């Protein structure tokens, strides 16, 4: 079934990912799982024919909606005057909160996200929606929306985490996980340090901003074409807001122009308002957010403050950790409960903590409600830990890599249970890190860099290896299920549909591979069609890296059902044993006899075999008891590590990433080309989060970095000139996942932490590695320069003290 050689060839740098052997394998065996097939839409992407919401020909008479946003971040609305909006050229209708007959709160888990707000309501953030308008063109709607006259009684906003924290303002109660006696663990340790780290948030910057088209149906329902990771939730909320049954709403998502978590719950509000407008006007209505409005009014990655006290021995081994994670959640709960939980679940990263207390606080501020973003709190938890490791290393005077290695989980001496009680069953990291240490020539480069740094006054180089261990499963148990629908038509072509959405991650490609593999047919035989709530109902969001794990299994179940019917039919029809029936190479072999898949299917149809099936899957084994903070929230862990080298200018704070080596564990890869794409892209996105991507609000709560002119995601020259990516060979998942693969969507983002640690390493070199720099995230040139300047001052002080 699976060719082991396939997983070991995969290395990328500047060379094409798919080698020729791969293509031959495919032609000969039709065993296409494991093959680096290109993205199912690649040909259409490059031709400009892949359609996004705003590209689909809209029905005749489609109106364009836009939104009126609050211009203050805190206060009460006194009056709303929309006369000029109504009278503006091209305007067709205006919609306000009082017209909503159904549910008015679209909070995904907890209430707190009003669809719009009205007179006497409190404004919770700058950019909150107050009304909507629709017109015959988008520009007219946008212009009209700016003509509203809204009076506010302004309040005093909490903008920073500190402000919300000092006012004890929270969106959800705090949660604690603890293991052993943390206090005595720290007190009895040889060394103790404490500190604080600020971790910035991140704008998703999906290239396609939020977009939706709603078409009223004759049953007084709604057909919705949208850009959402969560069509089922869109369906539910539209139905509730419109006060109609779920079955009257059909939500369709063919593809998104990027999402990264930003279209998990953030699409709900726009979708519901546009549906209301379509109902009100009985016309199709479309809305696409302008970039700056999207950046202003949709949630981001949570920013965090990490406050810690840690005890450790002379080798830098943990005795106890007391960690408080203060998350800036914005104005509402949204997904913050689960996000901060995941930050807490990842505060150990890959390291064994004999005793730990980890507390997560959900701080409320008058800013847009922060939301899911690739990693979902995990990156902040891991960064908090890697910062502590870095400080320990300088404190005991060792290479941070040695501190990391000394603390890895291992099966020996029971160092294998996390602070939330899950036992690590597959120890991938120690070997993976050793392999990377040697393939990246870490040690020899370390000594070259030391020499360089001694010889250079202005330029300094830095090097760091950081691991990632990332838990796979939704931490909300019921979301760990999926459905799929497979039809085999009488020409032998296969149509596949499942509950997962395509946002560029290659999900449709992988699942089509899985179905093709079951039937032993060519990949092109299987067409995966747009995700629709009327095809596969009650689906979970495509999130938590779970897309392939869940939907791949469901699709396999559906395809296997049909296959088993076909085998039974073959046994009866040809009077053979089931073992004699084989599906491969686009043919069905039955003992001596062989038919093309098409002919065989035709025959089965004539003999009245049901050629359609649905499949369902639920993840086994997982549970978590939040009342005691213990359980097994994850089916398994995905692992990886990266080595990054940087050079920085101590006079300007500018730096460049020179080389990156990555080894990542995807179990057995279903599609190595897609997986490498996720790893490279995730790494760069994580690097951006920690380097150039800085969110800045002013004291009134206005986001100042609300355009790509101000908010800088990595561009092409930020891609390291040497960028080696390897999939860890021969490392099938121990758990029975789809083809023993592992999830790959989120974990690689955290490989970008190696860049931040390498910058810290470079700054630390100013002190001869005696001190850890004070460097928050993101490490903008300004922050790096400040850290360099402080390091110089610390050196001066320590020399003065030594002389005294």
């Amino acid at each position, binding site marked *: 079934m699976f060719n082991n050689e396939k997983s070991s060839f995969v290395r*990328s740098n*500047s*060379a*094409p*990912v*798919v080698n020729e052997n791969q293509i031959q394998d495919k032609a000969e065996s039709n065993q296409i799982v494991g093959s680096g097939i*290109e*993205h199912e*839409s*690649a*040909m259409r992407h*490059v*031709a*400009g*024919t*892949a359609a*996004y919401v*705003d*590209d689909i*020909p809209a029905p005749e008479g489609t109106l364009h909606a836009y939104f009126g946003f609050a211009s203050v971040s805190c206060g009460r609305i006194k009056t709303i005057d929309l006369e000029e909006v109504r009278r503006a050229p091209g305007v067709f209708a205006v919609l306000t909160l009082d017209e909503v007959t159904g549910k008015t709160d679209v909070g995904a888990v907890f209430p707190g996200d009003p669809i719009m707000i009205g007179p006497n309501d409190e404004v919770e953030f700058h950019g909150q929606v107050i009304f909507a308008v629709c017109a015959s063109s988008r520009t007219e709607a*946008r212009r009209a929306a700016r003509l509203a006259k809204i009076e506010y009684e302004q309040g005093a906003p909490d903008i920073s985490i500190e402000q919300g924290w000092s006012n004890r303002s929270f969106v959800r109660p705090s949660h604690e996980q603890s293991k052993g006696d943390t206090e005595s663990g720290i007190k009895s340790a040889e060394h103790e340090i404490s500190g604080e780290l600020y971790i910035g948030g991140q704008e*998703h*910057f*999906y*290239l*396609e901003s939020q977009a939706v088209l709603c078409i009223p149906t004759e049953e007084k329902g709604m057909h919705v074409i949208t850009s959402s990771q969560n069509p089922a939730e869109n369906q539910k909320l539209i139905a509730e807001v419109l006060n109609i049954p779920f079955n009257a709403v059909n939500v369709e998502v063919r593809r*998104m122009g*990027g999402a990264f978590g930003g279209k998990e719950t953030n699409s709900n509000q726009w979708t519901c308002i546009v549906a209301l407008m379509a109902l009100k006007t009985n016309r199709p209505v479309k809305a696409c957010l302008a*970039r*700056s409005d999207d950046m202003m009014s949709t949630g981001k990655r949570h920013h965090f403050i990490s406050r810690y006290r840690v005890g450790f021995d002379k080798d830098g081994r943990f005795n106890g950790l007391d960690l408080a994670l203060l998350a800036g959640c914005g104005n509402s709960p949204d997904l913050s409960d689960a996000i901060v939980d995941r930050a807490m679940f990842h505060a150990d990263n890959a390291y064994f903590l004999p005793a730990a207390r980890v507390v997560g606080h959900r701080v409320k501020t008058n800013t847009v409600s922060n939301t899911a973003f690739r990693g979902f709190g995990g990156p902040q938890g891991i960064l908090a830990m890697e910062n502590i490791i870095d400080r320990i290393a300088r404190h005991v005077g060792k290479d941070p890599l040695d501190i990391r290695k000394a603390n890895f989980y291992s099966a020996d001496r029971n160092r294998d249970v996390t602070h939330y009680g899950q036992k690590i069953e597959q120890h991938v990291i120690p070997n993976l890190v050793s392999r990377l240490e040697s393939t990246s020539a870490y040690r020899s480069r370390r000594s070259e860099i030391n020499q360089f740094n001694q010889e250079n*006054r*202005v*330029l300094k180089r830095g090097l760091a290896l950081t691991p990632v261990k990332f838990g796979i499963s939704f931490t909300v148990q019921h979301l760990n299920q999926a459905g799929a629908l497979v039809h085999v038509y009488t020409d032998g072509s296969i149509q596949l549909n499942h509950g997962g959405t395509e946002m*560029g991650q290659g999900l449709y490609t992988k699942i089509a591979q899985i179905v093709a593999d079951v039937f032993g047919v060519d990949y092109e035989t299987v067409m995966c069609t747009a995700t629709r709530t009327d095809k596969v109902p009650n689906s979970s969001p495509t999130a938590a890296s779970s897309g392939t794990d869940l939907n791949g299994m469901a699709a396999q179940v559906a395809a296997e059902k049909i296959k088993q019917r076909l085998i039974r039919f073959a046994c009866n029809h040809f009077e053979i044993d089931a073992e004699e029936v084989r599906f491969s190479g686009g043919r069905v072999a039955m003992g001596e006899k062989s038919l093309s898949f098409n002919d065989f299917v035709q025959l089965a149809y004539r003999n009245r075999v049901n050629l359609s099936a649905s499949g369902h899957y639920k993840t086994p084994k997982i549970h978590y008891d939040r009342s005691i903070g213990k359980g097994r929230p994850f089916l398994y862990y995905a692992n990886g590590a990266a080595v990054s080298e940087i050079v920085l*200018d101590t*006079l*300007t704070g*500018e730096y460049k990433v020179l080389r990156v080596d990555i080894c990542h564990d995807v179990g057995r890869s279903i599609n190595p080309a*897609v997986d490498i*794409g996720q790893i*490279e*892209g995730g*790494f*760069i*996105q994580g690097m951006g989060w920690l380097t*150039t991507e800085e969110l800045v609000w002013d004291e009134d709560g206005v986001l100042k970095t609300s355009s*790509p002119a*101000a908010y*800088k*995601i*990595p*561009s*092409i*020259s*930020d*891609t390291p000139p040497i*960028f080696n990516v390897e999939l860890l060979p021969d490392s099938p998942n121990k758990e029975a996942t789809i083809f023993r693969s592992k999830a790959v969507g989120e974990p690689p983002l955290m490989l970008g932490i190696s860049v931040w640690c390498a910058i810290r390493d470079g700054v630390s070199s100013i002190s001869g590695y005696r001190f850890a720099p004070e460097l928050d995230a993101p490490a903008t040139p*300004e922050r790096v*320069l*400040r850290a360099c300047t402080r390091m110089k001052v610390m050196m001066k002080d320590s020399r003065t003290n030594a002389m005294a």
Partner: protein
Amino acid sequence: MIEFLVNDKVCAVSDAGANTTLLEYLREDLRLKGTKEGCASGDCGACTVTLACLSSETQSLEYLSANSCMTLVGSLDAKQVITVEYLEDGSDLHSCQKAMVEHHGSQCGFCTPGFVMSLFTYYKTHDVAAHETLKEALGGNLCRCTGYRPIISAGLHMLSSGNPDKFERNCDETIVSLGMMKQKTEIPVIVENEKQFFCPRTSDQLAQLLLTHPEARVVAGGTDLVLEINQSLRDIKTLISVSSVEEMKTISISDGHLIIGAAATFSQFQSTLIDNFPNLRELIGRFGSLQIRNQCTLGGNIANASPVADMPVFLIAMNTTLTLRRGEDRRTILIEDFFKSYKKTALKDSEFIEDIRIPMLKNRGTLKLYKISKRFEDDISSVCTAINLEIKDNFIQESNIVFGAMAEIPKRARHCEEALNGKSWTEETISEGMQALEQDFSPISDFRGSSEYRLEVSKNLLLRYFLERNSTPESLIRITQYV
């Protein structure tokens, strides 16, 4: 009427579209949905198209990439717009498209048409692919999914096919079409109710139009002005484009000056400028993106009078003069006197910059330029500086120090210059100069940098200048020179 080609179709605009961007026109009027709106501010490249322009000198087509969101249809006079839909040859993808598929260069696919068009332009303008030029070609295209590595691979491998592509085969036909459009003598114009867009072809026409329409806004590259249309959603009543005024695009050297026409785009003048001022290479490489440099002009960068504009910093340090023209009257002004206060210049009503004259000073080799920003590519400076010290017998004879993004206009650091002039060329003197910068500037704090940072970096750049002139180049290589 403004006439142009979109792919192989002749398009004419006469009574609509005075404020319309090419992106809007493609998507809404022509229903060509392959070109995407990512930001509508010229920062992401998702809307990139290729423009083919007929060179009046060589009578051949010059291909360049452009952000269609920042291009007004009125400025397309006698150009060919090539969109992603037109690249396929029959049912065959173009080499650049094939390479993107083979190298897994697309994930979500939304930025892909823009990348494909930048790659196509690169394909048409390069015989050999190289990392450095390729990155320059793609620096204005943002991708949030791939991390760029596979796109770089695609770009490096797409040039191998030897057969002429369909554009080469159709070249003559296109030249004839565009040539006929260029021959029409009346001034191309759009009149849309109250709004007008003029596209004069000579500077006399431009001067006359400005006298007749003193309220008119002059649009060159439009890379700032168009934001008023597509971000602020404002109507601009009268626009006069300089993009077809060929005589204002000339570049020449005479009387010890490099003379650049105000309407010459960066892509047109940058190689001559760098040849004469090699130390400008890095700054220009970090100036905007290729799409921006293909559109924006030196005249626009000056007349726009932004406090964060980079080129005025260099031009002030070189004691550049500007030729200003109003009707038939011309006057010369030192660029330092051109900037009055925030966004205010010495330009009178109906007056425009005709050319820019940069003295070819002997000591220009010791001029060094520095740009600091969060991101290397396509980012606005938190500090930009030009420093030139004349050293003789270990004494500083004359200093010439200009900073951008440190005040409401690009400005000389007079106190710093005074602190250095006549002093010995030592690190002590430099640190006095660094201190003096505090008297010269009290910069603002914003999201690009705090006041403290701007000041500290400014001081450090002066120190870096000193160290660079006194050490071996390797030990002070700039971060941007690591590739």
